[in-house]
């Protein structure tokens, strides 16, 4: 039995009914982990879905335990070229949270939950980018999947770097910096 068969992972779109089960999800004690926990367990997730059409997935194992979650959306229009343009949108990975007890699990990196969740989110981002590019302009930078990461969250930074995310200058805010990944929209590798 392969690791994937041994540790299957499922992705379902967030539903209100998940709120009850999410009460047991703890992403960790670091400030960014507490922020992720608070976001998914509070009302912020509902606000994001309503106001920004954020897509949220809940990841479960075969026993139906929640392993983590991810939230993806298109940003508002950015004025490009600055200062008066109105042509740019980016994709934005608002949150990726994993239960603290599932960090580094399973041990073999290829099958690790964090990797598989990020891969799923990149695959969804590609679909979203293609839809926007083809039917919902403006789409100048929509091939860029962006995110904000806390400067002290080194494991997350390493994870994102493994998947081709690079620093995006000029968007630093408080203790966060931005990273971007240019999506490969012409391949069907997912």
């Amino acid at each position: 039995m392969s690791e994937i068969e041994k540790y299957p992972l499922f992705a379902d779109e967030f539903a209100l009914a998940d709120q009850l089960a999410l009460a047991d999800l703890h992403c960790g004690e670091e400030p960014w982990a507490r922020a992720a926990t608070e976001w998914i367990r509070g009302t912020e997730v509902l606000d994001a879905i309503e106001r920004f059409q954020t897509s949220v997935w809940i990841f479960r194992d075969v026993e139906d335990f929640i392993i983590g979650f991810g939230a993806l959306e298109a940003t508002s229009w950015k004025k490009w070229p600055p200062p008066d343009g109105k042509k740019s949108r980016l994709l934005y990975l608002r949150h990726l949270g994993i239960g603290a007890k599932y960090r580094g699990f399973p041990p073999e990196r290829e099958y690790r939950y964090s990797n598989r969740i990020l891969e799923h989110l990149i695959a969804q981002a590609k679909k979203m980018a293609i839809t926007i590019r083809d039917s919902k302009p403006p789409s100048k930078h929509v091939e860029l999947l962006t995110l904000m990461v806390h400067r002290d969250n080194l494991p997350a930074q390493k994870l994102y770097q493994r998947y081709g995310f690079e620093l995006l200058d000029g968007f630093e805010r408080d203790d966060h910096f931005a990273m971007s990944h240019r999506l490969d929209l012409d391949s069907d590798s997912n």
Partner: protein
Amino acid sequence: MNIKLEQPSDFPLDAFRALLQASPGQQEILHRYMECSDSIQSVVRLMFAVLENPHVTDEDRHRATRTIADAIYLKPEAGHGSYGFDLAKVEREPATKHPEEHRRPLIAQRLDQLDQQQATFSERLRSILEQKNVTQEELAVRIECTQSAISKMITRNSRPHKKTILKMAAALSVSPTELWPDLEVASILDSIADFPAERELNEQQAAALDAALARPPVKVVVRELPARARK
């Protein structure tokens, strides 16, 4: 101001009708606005114009809303602000009257969480003042507000703004998180939420986006996960 009310047409019917239709929370906001000095009312009107302008950014709207919130809770007679505002009544309404019933328990849960944080803040502030032998009056002078504003925060009749917590922490030489433990979490959520909402790009950001777009696409195998029938 010399106002005459002699004819039925002198009566501001439309304005009165709108006032009657306002919710209790909205009426309280209007009441507070009317109590403000002319100069503060002028600021509120300016900020209202920002909210009405369809061309401003979400960030500008957010700032304007916060400025109004600050302004209408000023005490004109004291010349400065209460540095906190009591939203209890306005906030609690959605927990019992939100049109989508399924959201009410979640809103109530969130409010309970805020209450808990406020209680922790109150206890901690009281304890730090005691340890450092600082009176409410002295703290008020240090952060340029009134003693009654400090008192309201300690008695949980008013919730402090983040900037007030930061000022207090500096004035008391403690870390802001010693006063409000989840301040860092709130700040992280703000940072994450601000990025997608901002529309203004500066030259450096625009150049960074173009440079990122000029790079070749990332060739990485991604595996989409299956959905699962819910139990």
